[in-house]
């Protein structure tokens, strides 16, 4: 081979190598760029995934990704907090175990229905259900659901919102509204009652005045009659005016004078009694209704109880005897007069109903039970104890009696609000307490304690 050929080959190879080097350089730059891009994308993906997780974790709802076997595949932080479980506890368990037993079926049904209607967007449909925390406590939650497919398998996304706060707020609002409407009802009733009291008082005044007049004047007439009787007898003894005397005697016979002498005074006496009763009832209604008393005043609790018993007499008179045992030295108690009357009324009516219920259970209708009301002082508080010999309250019910709308009474007998309102009024508005002791079949005692005013409490302490 000659040098020339070799020379040319070398030159070609040089070119080829230069080309190869250039190519390598280009490729490696491409590679570098690609790798740069990949790492950037990776970082971006990581950041996005973190963002996503953060979004998930900060969503105000528990979110679960659940596979076809109902196993939890993924969950967020709120889910852990809501159900009081760690991520490890949660992954792989059956999603429906997070429900209270009685609401599992409904949740499964919701799942099945939404699967059937996958084409519809079901995420905006929500149902209410009951969740169960690891500690066993249950809470109301709102559920919504979305079905999705990934890599050929289908998953369900569950969004569960703990609505206990909202529920509580709503309950508070409803309760407040009830209290308000109760207060309004009481107020209008009070205004009405005092109006009626006024209407009744006017005729009572003159019925009473006239009866007093009849009583006095009949006594005067009787003394006139007695004098005339003496005259008749004297004339008769003297044998005078025989015809006229016979007429007078016939007239007396006809009018049944002896009967009138006896009965007229007692009939007037009874009328006056009745009028006094009416006037007592009207006064009691007026005091009970106490319109316009929206602030605390010193109340004679013993008197308030008497008044309430008078007003509510119809509720208890055929069911029970009422016995009162008052501490006459009890000082006046600062309270809302209308509410205290209402509370005592509720207690007395409850006692009467308890006795009625016992009577019908034991088939002893007509046998009077007994309601005893005692007042006294205990540790700087005024104490009212209302006992009945009624059916009693079972231990289970005792826990709920102060809950709103809880009632064991038949339809139309109770709304389940009486004790709950009493509880709210005594504990919150008066800073007192209300408690119950009861034995089924024997009777119940409610004890209300109200703080005495500062001055009275001081006097007690000395």
């Amino acid at each position: 081979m000659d040098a020339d050929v070799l020379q040319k080959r070398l030159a070609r190879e040089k070119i080829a190598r230069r080309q190869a080097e250039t190519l390598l350089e280009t490729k490696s730059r491409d590679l570098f760029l690609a790798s740069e891009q990949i790492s950037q994308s990776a970082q971006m993906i990581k950041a996005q995934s973190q963002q996503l997780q953060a979004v998930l974790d900060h969503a105000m709802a528990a979110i679960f990704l659940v596979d076809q076997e109902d196993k939890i595949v993924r969950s967020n932080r709120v889910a852990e907090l809501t159900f009081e479980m760690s991520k490890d506890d949660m992954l792989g368990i059956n999603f429906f175990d997070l429900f209270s037993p009685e609401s599992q079926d409904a949740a499964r049904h919701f799942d099945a229905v939404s699967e059937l209607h996958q084409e519809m967007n079901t995420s905006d449909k929500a149902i209410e259900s009951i969740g169960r925390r690891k500690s066993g406590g249950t809470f109301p939650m709102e559920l919504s659901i979305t079905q999705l497919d990934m890599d050929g398998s289908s998953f369900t996304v569950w969004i569960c919102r703990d609505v206990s706060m909202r529920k509580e707020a709503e309950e508070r609002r409803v309760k407040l509204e009830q209290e308000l409407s109760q207060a309004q009802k009481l107020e209008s009733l009070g205004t009405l009652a005092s109006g009626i009291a006024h209407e009744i008082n006017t005729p009572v005044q003159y019925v009473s005045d006239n009866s007093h007049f009849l009583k006095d004047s009949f006594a005067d007439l009787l003394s006139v009659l007695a004098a005339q009787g003496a005259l008749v007898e004297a004339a008769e003894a003297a044998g005078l005016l025989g015809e006229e005397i016979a007429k007078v005697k016939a007239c007396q016979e006809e009018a049944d004078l002896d009967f009138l002498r006896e009965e007229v005074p007692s009939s007037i006496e009874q009328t006056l009694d009745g009028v006094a009763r009416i006037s007592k009832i009207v006064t009691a209604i007026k005091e009970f209704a106490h319109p316009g008393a929206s602030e605390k005043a010193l109340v004679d609790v013993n008197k308030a109880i008497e008044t309430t018993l008078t007003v509510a007499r119809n509720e208890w008179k055929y069911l029970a005897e009422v016995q009162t045992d008052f501490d006459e030295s009890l000082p006046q108690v600062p309270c809302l007069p209308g509410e205290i009357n209402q509370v005592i009324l509720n207690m007395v009516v409850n006692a009467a109903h308890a006795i009625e219920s016992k009577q019908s259970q034991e088939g002893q209708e007509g046998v009077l039970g007994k309601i005893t009301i005692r007042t006294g002082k205990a540790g700087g508080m005024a104490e009212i104890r209302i006992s009945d010999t009624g059916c009693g309250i079972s231990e289970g019910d005792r826990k709920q009696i102060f809950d709103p709308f809880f009632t064991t009474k038949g339809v139309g007998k109770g709304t389940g609000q009486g004790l709950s309102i009493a509880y709210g009024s005594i504990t919150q508005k008066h800073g007192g307490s209300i408690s119950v002791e009861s034995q089924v079949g024997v009777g119940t005692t409610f004890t209300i304690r109200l703080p005495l005013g500062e001055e009275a409490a001081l006097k007690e302490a000395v």
Partner: protein
Amino acid sequence: MKPRILFVDDNNNILMGLRRMLRGMRGDWAMDFAEGGEMALAKLDSAPADVVVTDMKMPGMSGAELLDEVAVRYPRSLRLILSGEADPEATFRTIATSHQFLQKPSNSERLIAIIKASLERRGAVPGAERQAWVTGTSRLAVSRAGRDRLTPLLRQESLPIEEIGEAFAAEPALAAKVMQLANSAYFGVGDPVSSPKAAVSLLGQDVLRALLREENLLPAFPEGFCQGYHERTVAFSRDVADLAAWIAGQQGGGAQEIALARLAGLLHALGRLLLCDQAPEDYAKVLAMVPAGATVDDAEREVFGCAQADFGAYLAQIWGLPQTVVDALRHLDRPSALEEAERAGLPLLAAHSALGIVSGLNAADPLGAAAAQLDGDFLARHGCKNKVGDWMDGWQQRETAA
């Protein structure tokens, strides 16, 4: 001449009923009946009445309007309302214009007792003009100290009932007024109230506020010769009230008796306050006589023809204050003089002793000065003759401790 009583009501049944019911009083009273305010004024025009008893709600002239007229034309008449009214607004209208508000139905005994006792008390005050000072008083002047204490309290948005009650209980004018209101039939639905503090609490925020709106509750004593004396009399009354309550407590009195003793002590000079207010020029004569050696009591008797206590008892009676306090006021001076003074019992004993002790405190010989004021027979009857020295010591120790 029999006292004349005029009853006014738009309901004739009521008038006939009253006429029949009070038939037994025909020997003591001349009674007349008017169907409505206009007819009442016409009747009064021909013959003024000593007592006017009217319904509240009537077509045309209301009871309050009628009594406004009566107060101007016949200031000496006693003005009573007998009503079944339940409307608070309407009732406020009657506060200044009527002496007492009686609830329908009222039985004859109560109505008769109130009118009889009022006329009796009036009988102790000589002369129509002086009697009219009492019936013409709808409120009494408040001391400067009392005004200073109450003005900021009454400006607060939520009235501090407790503090206001205490301030009222320290001011005779306000204590008497609030007791009148609380014991009137509309407000006093329960048992009679025996302390101004309880009365304020019974009336409560709403009523007090309405009162502030409708009434000038704190009239000042006018500038003048008697002003300083008025101020001192109120301060003195406060001391007597505190001591009377303390003595009643020492004697084992219950809460009610202590409250009544305090009230009797606080109001012991009610008549004097009324005279300073209603007849300052005449009262100046009393004060001029004192430096010449007369006692205030004697000077008052000479100028006004009766004791200041007679004025006070008359006012307390027509304002419907507790009967124990009215009785105590009448006999505070010489309780043993009248047997019926026994009715006032411990409150009278405590108030009488407190008055004597407080009067003597600044004398050279306090015990001697007190003893000179006190009714020995009365104290002896209650077994307290030897306790005066102890009470004085005990009280002074308490005062120094405080």
